[in-house]
């Protein structure tokens, strides 16, 4: 299963200190693992929510560092692309994996797959036994749809103001964090549903 999906900044943001990342969208799947652990049962719902937000932020920070270091090492220049050039942007994206040790921040060890598209990172946190090849394909697919349906290559703020579109994408392509083996026909049929939703 996938633990969470997030979209966050991987470039410096003027209002944040260096190394920080602004989380623009995040979705944690399934029940909170702390609900079921004895240690955190006494936490109030507010505290649980806060803890979850901090965990997501911790992932975003780690990925942000990984992206910067990877970009620094490869020395490739980031090519700015325009709306409509989603496929190009995706081809040009950096990618990688960050190993998140147990307890940092999730109770079990997890792998954070990331895709760096210009100033944004798209991250999928997977559980230990997950099929990363499938996860990678799913992440690319999700990212492409996000870029297209939320016009993310442009200057708008639809990622904040139309996040329900991402929710719908996730409900089809990654329902409840379940990675799906979708051949192109299955994918097409889901994409039709998604397109129908977006058209409303």
């Amino acid at each position, binding site marked *: *299963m996938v633990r969470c999906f997030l979209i966050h900044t991987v*470039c410096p*943001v*003027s*209002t944040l200190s260096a190394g920080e990342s*602004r989380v623009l969208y995040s979705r*944690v799947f*399934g*029940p909170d693992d702390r*609900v*079921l652990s004895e240690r955190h049962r006494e936490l109030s719902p*507010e505290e649980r*929510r*806060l803890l979850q*937000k*901090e965990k997501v932020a911790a992932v975003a920070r780690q990925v942000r560092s*990984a992206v910067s*270091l*990877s970009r*620094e*090492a490869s020395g490739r220049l980031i090519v700015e692309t325009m709306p409509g050039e989603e496929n190009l942007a995706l081809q040009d994206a950096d*990618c*990688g*994996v960050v*190993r998140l*040790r147990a307890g940092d921040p999730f109770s079990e060890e997890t792998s954070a*797959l990331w895709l760096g*598209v210009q*100033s*944004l990172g798209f991250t999928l946190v997977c559980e230990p*036994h997950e*099929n*990363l*090849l*499938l996860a*990678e*394909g799913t992440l690319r697919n999700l990212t492409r749809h996000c870029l297209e349906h939320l016009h*993310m*290559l442009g*200057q*708008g*703020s639809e990622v904040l*103001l139309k*996040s*329900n579109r991402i929710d*719908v994408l996730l*409900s089809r392509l990654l*329902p*409840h*964090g*379940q990675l*799906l*083996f979708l*051949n*192109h*026909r*299955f994918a097409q*049929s889901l994409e*039709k*549903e998604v397109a129908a939703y977006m058209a409303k």
Partner: protein
Amino acid sequence: MYSHASESLIKQAREIQESELQKFYSRLMKMLQGKELGHDTVDSLQRLHLILSATKYTRTLPLELQKRFVALLSSPAEQHQVLSAAVLRETLPLTGQELNYNQDNLGQLNSHAAGLLLSQAVSRGDLSSLCTQLLRNLESRPSEGPTHSLMHTLPVLNSVLTHSPECLSEDQMTLVSKKLVDWLRYASVMQGVGTSSGGFFTGPRSRQPVPIAELDGSVSGDFFTVLCVGQGFTEDQWMNVYSFSMLRHWLLTYHSSCSTTVDAANRLQLSLSLSHSHSFSNDDRSEVDGSVVSMVSATSSSSRLLPPKERLREKAFQYCQRLIEQSDRKAHKKTDTELQKACLVEAVCILDCVCVEDASLVYRTFPCIKALFGRLSSELSYARVLLPIAQFYLNHGEIAAVDCENVWKVVFGRFPTELFNDPFLAHELLRFLRLNLESIELRVPQYTRYFPNLLKFLAWDSPAMVDDFVDLLPSMVTTGTAVELLHTLLDLPCLSATLVLQHRSTCLPISEPVGRNFVSLDAFRNPSFRGLFLFLLRTEAGSGDTMDRLSTLHELLVEAADWPRVTQCARTVPVLLHVFFNTIVTIADEKLLAHLILVMLERSSLLLNIPAYIKEIHRVFSCHLLRLCKLHPSLVVNQSHELLEFAGSTANVYSKEELFTHVVWVLGEYLSVSCDSRCSVSLITSCFEALEAVLFEITSSAPPTGTVCPAPKVINTLMSALAKLASRSHDLIPRVSLFLSKLRTVTRSGSVAWCSDEEDLVAIVTRGEELWSLLKAPGVAQSVLTPPPHVIAPQWHRDTNEMSAYSYYMRPGIVMQQEEASTHCTIVGSVGSKGFIPTPTLPVECSLGSKCLSVRQHQQQ
């Protein structure tokens, strides 16, 4: 992409005033009371979500409004479900009685509401009852509900199982197992019409049913799998996809723990007979609904005889075998080729999983796995599929008596060599190593030989890999590999640079003139230097610890010193060296440690020229030299020749101050009969003379141009070492005293060329005076400067725990005493526990002056 507008939106959402928010709530309330929800409402809901989610503080909605959202959850319009679920996820769940809505509507619980329910579950009880409801839905054929109501069931179920596998009862597990068998093995083999036409027998007569196709376009001749395509899909075909997607997790969760060997013999017999029967079988049908019989099946079986769990295992086995067959077909779409790879990974993992549960399946599975390995081993694009295959060989190769050597050659040999720059392969390969380390050390002992190759992953992408290597490196440290491994780690930045060159070299054609920045690329392509680079790029260890022309290589790579990849790599080397030394002290004998000390001394001046890197390496060397000598004091007498050679060179004072200081300290401390009976008077004298010469030289002239004055700690250490040596051979005392008196005379004038700071000079002179006065009483000097063992490690109590606590308590006390007496030079070490290795400190210097104290703090880092 990320604009200022977005940033200011977040700011606005966070800073919205309470009064404004209340107005917004009441406006929303009015909007939601209307029958139709217009654009404005949707827009406002989205804004509300932003306001709630942008802050880490929880905002509380008015109860009425929250109830509205709960009602909206079951609205027929998906947009409303999505938005209300999103809003409710960011608020606190309603308490007890308000939750009832869930129970009433569970029958038609849509996917978004189910997701919300999952995320807000507060106890295992919540999850259990959710499971029960979901399974009830599964049981009743849901022809009336919308298709999706059934489809999200499995993902929700799987999500619950991840966190709380004990939610399901034995009966429920059986039910799901049966259902999975049904969907996996008996999904319709005819194409669905449209996406939601559902049912097996609903095909209208007017339209001839069309069989499903394979990815290469041919008509499918066997049961349906995720690699089958059609114009549309039936519901059970969708369920096939969902079932396969969760199958491995299901097997891992519920099967591995229940595996028994009770009737292993029976099963073995059965499976053997099955593997020989390739006949078509009519009893092979769905147990639940008696669905269409698959007409052609390579391994049909009479598995109805099996209990549900075993039956699922058998069907999973068949499904995976079929997927492996199907993956050999040439897919028309690129995305389907990728899916084939992902399916291969999953299939092999599932086969591994069922074979772990039931060893008798190993014999039926191996031919297929072997064939797959044969087919894919030469294709690098399938590298990530080969890792699960390697896992299979590792887990079952022994039982099946299969030769695995070729697998390891590919995985440890070819992959790192050719795919060092694939971040995903690197991650998966290193994870494979980590998770199976014990088994690999046992079954693939030759693994450690591949360390030069495996380190390529680290050299290429150090920040991402260092974490894995911190875990893996200890397994690579053996008495056989230690020396070569140390050299290899020290040359890791060179390897990094070489990989960059290799990468560039393959990207740029030979004919292309290389830019002026790539002088090293010319060298890389120059046949006369080929050997140097090939040594760095070697696959296996054992061809020599290091190379002759290392300095040539460093010169060739001098421009690489500021390549980001190389500097990133250089930053990780000290970390790994610490891991290396921490491991080696646990396994090495004194002879090997002596060799390592030689390597340290030799390599301290033979490193790729990155100043920060060199400094850090010297620091690591210093720390571990001290530690090794503390553990085995006789090492110093053993290696006195080389240590003296190092300490006798004045140039080292300026170029390797840190290491020099430590070498001098260990010489002064451990060159003593009490550490090694071989320590002769002449050895002490020659050591004394060498150090005396250096001290004289550096305190009689200004530092060479381009260098700074030696730190006071160097001079203090030298003086202390001389005093210690003299206290062991009293003939030398007049010589030290003479030097110390001269020092006082010289410095009386105020300033000297070799020390720019007045305070430092005072500290040095004070130190000299202390030593001088101490040496006036040779007997006292000896017992203070070379204290007998019972003073260094007094064992007042036998209880280790009590004493270690006591030792911490004592520590400041001892230091204070030293200051009072101004003459004590004993080690402030562990008290009471011999096994405990104290943090390396330089106690002699530590007790003096604030400047010197910083030395100790540094060491303790």
